[in-house]
């Protein structure tokens, strides 16, 4: 277990540095000049040179990358702006703020959106999947499979916009989606995010229903499930303790990937419902050639995926005793 943790931590660090480097160097291959964008509309050459020096853009690209990397651990001094304490992900001239602060401001929005939606799609997806598997070929199964197909095919900006129109603006059944910190007002947090949660969950639930159903059908015909029935275990126990256990591996696998991806930013959902999360931040960073912010969002997205993958691998060993962690 310790060996696994050490190995995965090292691998995670290497992955993140590599991804940062690729992003960094690709950014400088772009034709836009960040100094020009930071400088403002009227930009005399002397000011441009100053901005360039303050941003460190006069240094070689490699040196800039090393300075950025060092800033994460040691903090960094920006002439004319002041000191950016560790972990310093750089200073954004577009947002006029240290990037770390912006990320810390946006991350709770994305996390709230992700976790709320995940609870809904995991619960409903797995539950309908189990029921469909138990009622193979019967009406409930057919309804579930059609609903899954529809759910998987619709787009968030379509369902989301319709839901906004009918439930919020016309029906006035729900408040307009907004983010209120959980610590400030738990009820406001939940009601403000309810619609985005449900809409995001619709898309994902389908996946879990189909996955759970097909694996459950397979598992129900496993020999050990038959043994469990042959030894008189009640139907509920047979399903939940035996058949579902083998279904957990594929569910955990896709759940890890989905969670990682969503933490990296649910761009369309955030845009549809006007939520200021990581997803929208990254889009803005690209649009304004805001390198420090872009780097930070890439790092969050990559970090989420890498960490979730390690968690999933660790969970395999918890679910299936035959799996050895190395």
């Amino acid at each position, binding site marked *: 277990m310790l060996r696994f943790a050490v190995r995965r931590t090292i691998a995670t660090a290497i992955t993140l540095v590599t991804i940062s480097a690729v992003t960094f160097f690709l950014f400088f291959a772009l034709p836009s000049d960040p100094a020009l964008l930071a400088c403002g509309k009227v930009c005399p050459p002397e000011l441009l040179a100053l901005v360039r020096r303050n941003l460190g853009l006069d240094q070689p690209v490699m040196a800039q990358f090393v300075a950025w990397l060092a800033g994460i651990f040691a903090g960094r001094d920006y002439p004319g702006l002041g000191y950016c304490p560790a972990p310093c992900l750089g200073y954004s001239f577009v947002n006029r703020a240290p990037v770390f602060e912006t990320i810390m401001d946006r991350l709770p929005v994305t996390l709230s959106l992700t976790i709320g939606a995940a609870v809904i799609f995991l619960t409903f997806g797995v539950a309908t999947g189990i029921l469909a598997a138990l009622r193979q070929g019967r009406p409930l199964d057919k309804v579930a499979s059609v609903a899954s197909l529809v759910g998987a095919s619709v787009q968030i900006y379509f369902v989301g916009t319709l839901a906004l129109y009918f439930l919020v603006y016309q029906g006035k059944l729900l408040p307009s989606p907004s983010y209120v910190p959980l610590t400030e007002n738990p009820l406001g947090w939940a009601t403000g995010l309810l619609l985005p949660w449900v809409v995001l969950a619709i898309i994902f639930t389908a996946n879990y229903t189909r996955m759970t159903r097909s694996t459950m059908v397979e598992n129900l015909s496993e*020999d050990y499930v038959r043994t469990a029935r042959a030894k*008189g*275990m009640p139907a509920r126990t047979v399903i939940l303790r035996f058949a579902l*256990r083998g279904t957990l591996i594929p569910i955990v696998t896709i759940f890890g990937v989905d969670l990682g991806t969503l933490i990296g930013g649910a761009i369309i959902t955030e845009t549809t419902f006007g939520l200021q999360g990581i997803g929208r931040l990254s889009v803005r960073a690209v649009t304004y050639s805001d390198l420090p912010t872009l780097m930070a969002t890439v790092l969050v997205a990559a970090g989420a995926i890498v960490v979730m993958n390690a968690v999933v691998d660790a969970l395999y060993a918890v679910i299936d*005793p035959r799996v050895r962690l190395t």
Partner: protein
Amino acid sequence: MFLHVNDLTVDFATEDGVVHAVDELSFEVERGSTLGVVGESGSGKSVTSLAVLGLHDPRTSTISGSVLFEGKELLGAPRTAMERLRGDRIAMIFQDPLTSLSPYHTVGAQIAEVYRRHRGTSRSAAWERAIQMLDRVGIPQPKARAEDYPHQFSGGMRQRATIAMALVCDPGLLIADEPTTALDVTVQAQILDLLRELQEQSGTAIILITHDLGVVATAAHDVLVMYAGRAVERGTVREVLHEPRHPYTWGLLGSMPTLRRPVTEELRPVRGAPPSLLNVPKGCPFHPRCDFVELPGPRVCTGERPELSPPRGHGDACYLTMKQKREVAP
């Protein structure tokens, strides 16, 4: 009578039509005795045992007839009553001990949960019982091994564990479906010895399903030979193996190599293949593969289906007269 199966018929509805897996099968098992059920794959052996336990999916199968166990009718009994019976009064062990044990739970837990389920004891008492059972089936260091998962056991040990699991509640009837088929020959003998030993201790009746006549010869008291979902011969082991009456039984015995037979003598396998259960031949189901189909007279074997006769004792379902059988028997 302890277990009395009468006219058991099991049909499965499939896309290709109705599969007649078991057709009007009747047999009896006495307390403390072992009935060996033999036949080729697809002769309905396993389907019969699953029907006794009520493990067929009622949505895809139709079952009729009667299964009387300790005086109670099991066919059509409520689901919860069957759940309480299974694992307690009637237990089952399967062919492949690796796949029939859950890979996700320890061996001890899988045994203990049966005891706890049927006896309602505390967790610790059930765990103690599981260790005691592992000891009884000859697993060394049972206390430590109870904490292991099935994949940490060898094949023979796993089958011992499934036997411990099946016998944890002292069932009156144990159905063993090919319990030694997946095991090494040396381990097979150990498992059969173990079953016999446990039977002597507890008086459990055993239905031993196998395609191996050698297993029947060493482990069973009575034999039921099945073909295409029907009983074609029934009797004690001595009767059926030493004075076989049905041409199919002759075929089974002729296709089995023995050490006593000279190596120069060729095996005589039954020609052809078992019939499709979607379309069982009319009359005697064995007639397309039988060498003596003309002997009873024209169109006799292809007409009505022969019944087991005599109805008690050593009986077979064939139109050949005893005299004819004596003349043509190998």
